[in-house]
C-alpha cells in the first residue's frame, strides 16, 4: 500500500519536475544569444562604423571647456622626459607648424609669474584636452554648463 503511494507520487512529480525544467530552459534560451552572429543567417548585419577624429576646430560647448583636439594623439609621448604636443603647439614652434599656440595662461606658474616655457602645472595636456571623434556617446550625459 505504502509502495503504491510512493509510486503514485513519483508518477505525478517526475513529469511535473521535468516539464518545469523544460519550461525554465526555454525561457532562459529566449534571453540567451543564440548565435555568435546575433541574428538569423538570412538577416543582414551591418558592420560597425569606424569613427575617425573630427578634423577642424570644434566649437566649445561651454565657456570654460578646454578646446578639443581635432586629431589622433595615441602615439604622442607626454611624460616626465618629453611632451611631443609642444613640438607643434609651443609658442616657439606653432608659427612654423601652422598649429594653434597654447593659451598664454599655460606659461604662468602658480604664483602668476610669466615663464618662457610651458608651466609644469600645465605639462600633461591630456589631463584637460581630449581628442574628439564623430561617434555617438557611449553613456548618457546630463552635464549642463553653469553659465
Amino acid at each position, binding site marked *: 500500500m505504502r509502495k503504491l503511494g510512493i509510486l503514485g507520487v513519483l508518477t505525478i512529480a517526475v513529469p511535473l519536475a521535468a516539464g518545469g525544467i523544460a519550461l525554465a530552459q526555454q525561457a532562459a534560451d529566449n534571453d540567451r544569444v543564440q548565435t555568435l552572429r546575433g541574428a538569423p543567417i538570412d538577416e543582414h548585419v551591418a558592420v560597425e562604423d569606424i569613427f575617425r*577624429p573630427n*578634423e*577642424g576646430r570644434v566649437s566649445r560647448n561651454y565657456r570654460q571647456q578646454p578646446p578639443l583636439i581635432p*586629431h*589622433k594623439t595615441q*602615439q604622442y*609621448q607626454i*611624460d616626465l*622626459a*618629453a611632451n*611631443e604636443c*609642444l*613640438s607643434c603647439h609651443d609658442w616657439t*614652434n606653432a608659427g612654423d*607648424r*601652422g598649429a594653434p599656440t597654447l593659451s598664454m595662461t599655460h606659461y604662468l606658474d602658480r604664483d602668476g609669474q610669466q615663464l618662457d616655457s610651458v608651466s609644469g602645472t600645465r605639462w600633461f595636456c591630456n589631463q584637460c584636452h581630449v581628442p574628439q571623434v564623430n561617434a555617438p556617446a557611449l553613456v548618457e550625459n546630463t552635464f549642463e554648463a553653469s553659465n
Partner: protein
Amino acid sequence: MADIENQAKKPGLLKRLWRFIARPSVSLSVGFLTFCGIVIGVLFWGGFHWALEMTNTEPFCISCHEMRDNVFAEYQGTVHQNNSSGVRATCPDCHVPKEWGPKLARKIAATKELYGHFVTRSIWTEEKFKDQRIHLASNEWARMKKTDSQECRNCHAFDYMDFTQQENRAAKNHQKALDDGLTCIDCHQGIAHDLPPNYLEAYRGVVADLIANGDIEPQQRDIEEAKAAIKE
C-alpha cells in the same frame, strides 16, 4: 756536422709558407684545384654573408639586455610594431642600411658598441642608458638626416603617398615638407622609442652641426636672403 749545416740553412716560417704556396702543383690537376677553389670560396663567402645576416635580426639585437630592456621594450605597441596591416619593421629595418657598402660600414662602426657592452659598459644600467640617450639619439638623427632618412625610404616615399587619403594636417605638412626639401626625421623623431628631455633643441643642434660641417645643404633660405628676394 751535416745536421748542423742543415739546421743553419733552415729558412724562417714565413719563407717556408711562401715557398709552399708559390710551389707549382706537381700531381693535382688545374681543374681539381679550380674546383676546390670554387668550393672553398662559396663556403667562405656564404659563411660571411650568413654571419652578416645573423647579426641583422631582432633576436640578435635583443640578446643584449641593454637593447631588450630599454629600446626594445619601448618599441612594443608603437605603430611599427603593432598596426592594422600586420607589417612590422624590426630593429635592423630602421637601424641598418640595406645597401651593401653602407651596411658594412655600419657593421664595422658597430664594433664600438661591442666595446661599450663588454669593456666600458657605458649603458649597462637604466640610469646610464638614460644619461646617454640624448647622445645616442643624436647619432641616429645625424645618420638619418645625412642619408635623407634612407631607412624610412625603404618603405615610405613622398612619390608613393596619396595625400588625399591622409589626415588633413598630415597631407598639408607632407606637402610642405616636400616643397621645403625636408626629410622624414625632421618631424618624426622618437616614433618607435621614447624621447629624452629637450629633444627638439638637441635635434636642431644636430642639424646645425651637420650644416656647419658641410655634410648637408641648408634647406631653408636665410631670412636676409629671402627678404632680398622679396625686394627684387
